[in-house]
């Protein structure tokens, strides 16, 4: 089942994939972190990427969003080859991602963190003569996203004063604020308390319900995976080893073995 399957996606496949990677690879020194991964992703579908620690999930994200440059292979967005684009250009082209290890503007206020995302979306960054505060609609948009992740109450606090969980939520808010076509979540609920997790999951559900966004999600929590996934991709030692229906994939030997670790987890 080593394929980039289009057949087995549960939502009716839109003819053209919004995002696709062809033989995408990267190696660090001798170590191949992502190896010839080819996959297509479709609007309105939510794909969960699972795999052992160090399988290459985050690196795969980095290759798509441009934080890393592929050693070989290509990434294309709505049919356009964006392999040569830098991170910023890809973001503006519509690829948004939230980071696994929280990565924010520590000394700016929670509000400003989100506002900057909105501003980038609005593309007025180079405007020197207007006042940032005169762009009321942007501020309102930012406030709206803060409410959606239930952070409105911390609006004016600096980010370093947030607890870990709150930072995770802010990470998500920023991604939403970018309003990208492609949304990539890297373990959004890691370290989030059990009562907060649903907040984020519902958010993702809502976005998914809009049916026009392409969502990629890296997650280790099986319950989360089950409740969200239309489709599951399994990475193992950088190679794509399974791709398809959640049920079938989760049942497959390799996943049981290497990932869920029924029996002893041999290699990693």
């Amino acid at each position, binding site marked *: 089942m080593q394929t980039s399957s289009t057949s087995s996606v549960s939502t009716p496949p839109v003819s053209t994939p919004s995002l696709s990677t062809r033989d995408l690879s990267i190696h660090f020194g001798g170590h191949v972190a992502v190896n010839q991964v080819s996959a297509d992703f479709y609007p309105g579908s939510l794909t969960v990427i699972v795999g052992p620690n160090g399988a290459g999930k985050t690196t795969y994200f980095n290759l798509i969003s441009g934080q890393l440059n592929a050693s070989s292979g290509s990434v294309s967005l709505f049919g356009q080859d964006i392999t040569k684009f830098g991170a910023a250009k890809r*973001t503006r082209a519509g690829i948004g991602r939230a980071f696994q290890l929280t990565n924010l503007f520590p000394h700016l206020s929670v509000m400003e963190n989100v506002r900057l995302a909105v501003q980038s979306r609005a593309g007025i960054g*180079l405007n020197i003569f207007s006042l*940032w505060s005169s762009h009321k609609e942007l501020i309102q948009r930012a406030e709206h996203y803060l409410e959606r992740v239930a952070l409105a109450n911390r609006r004016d606090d600096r980010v370093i004063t947030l607890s870990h969980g709150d930072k995770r939520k802010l990470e998500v808010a920023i991604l939403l604020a970018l309003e990208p076509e492609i949304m990539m979540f890297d373990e959004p609920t890691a370290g989030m308390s059990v009562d907060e997790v649903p907040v984020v999951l519902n958010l993702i559900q809502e976005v998914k319900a809009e049916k026009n966004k392409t969502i990629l999600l890296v997650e280790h929590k099986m319950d989360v995976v089950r409740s969200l996934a239309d489709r599951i991709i399994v990475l193992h030692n950088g190679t794509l080893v399974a791709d398809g229906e959640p049920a079938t994939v989760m049942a497959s030997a390799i996943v049981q073995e290497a990932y869920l670790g029924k029996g002893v987890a041999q290699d990693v």
Partner: protein
Amino acid sequence: MFRQLLSDDLPRSRMLSALLLLTFFGLAAAPFITSGARPLNTAATICIYIILVASYDLLLGYTGIVSFAHTMFFGIGAYGVGLALSSGTPGWGVIIIGILLALILTVALALMIGLFALRVRAIFYSMITLAVASSFAVLASQLSDLTGGEDGITFRVPEILTPGFQLFENDIFGRTVDGKVITYYIVFSICVLLFLFLLRVVNSPFGRVLQAIRENEFRAEALGYRTVVYRVLANCLAALLAALAGALMALWLRYVGPKTMLSFEVMTDILLIVVIGGMGTLYGAVIGAALFIIAQNYLKNLMAQGSEALVDFPILAQIFHPDRWMLWLGVLFILSVYFFPTGIVGKLRGGLRQR
């Protein structure tokens, strides 16, 4: 209206507002509330340094770029005017041309440095600027036929700017309104305009991105801002303003020379003022510059009295001897970093909480 003028970036502290108003009116009325050459000289220097420092803060406080090349641009502006005036017959046209040429050179250099900086880490960037600046200074003193070498050039300015020229017959508030005073008001008003412009820049969406870059460049890039472009732009803006400040300085002093325009001392003064005043807030530049320049001009007189009072304690007298004023400058350096980690403005505003 007023809000708009200040780009909605109000002092947000009674004390601070008071100080700013004091400085503003003090400078506006300087020629008539003081007498003699030195006070006027001090006032003019303050005006010019406010711009010089504020423009540097755009790099340092807002974008988080540590550059040592700021004096270089200051110098280019100054030499632009100086060379123009010393070459041709002093006239406004000549000045304008001089400034324009200087600005062109400035942008070219700023772009070059900026683009070079993309290849190297932040800290290396500051070291490179240091190197470039110092070699530029060397160059300036080497081309002695053109620049007058270490000695620099003393030049003439248009008639109405010379002390000889008198606007009115009789004195006003005990000050003859001569070319010096006219020059002062030219300097003053240009500085006000430039400052307001800077305020606008840092409070524009652009300015906000700069702060984001300072905080976390990687993330700013990930948000879709081409940080390179922003840094280079900030670089050029700051350089241009510095050059303008330099032009004004030359016009005021009727002299240009490496010690005054290009030396590392000027750079350290700028840095110190930024820190005393408070990084990342332009008002810091105003307060800092005012305090510092005044101190620099009058500290020694104070110390002279101090050491006279202490004659019978040799060591103390030694330490407070006016020739040791640099010692106290150094102490100032240290204390200001100690006690005003966020600068005077930061202190006055209480904490560095951002909006």
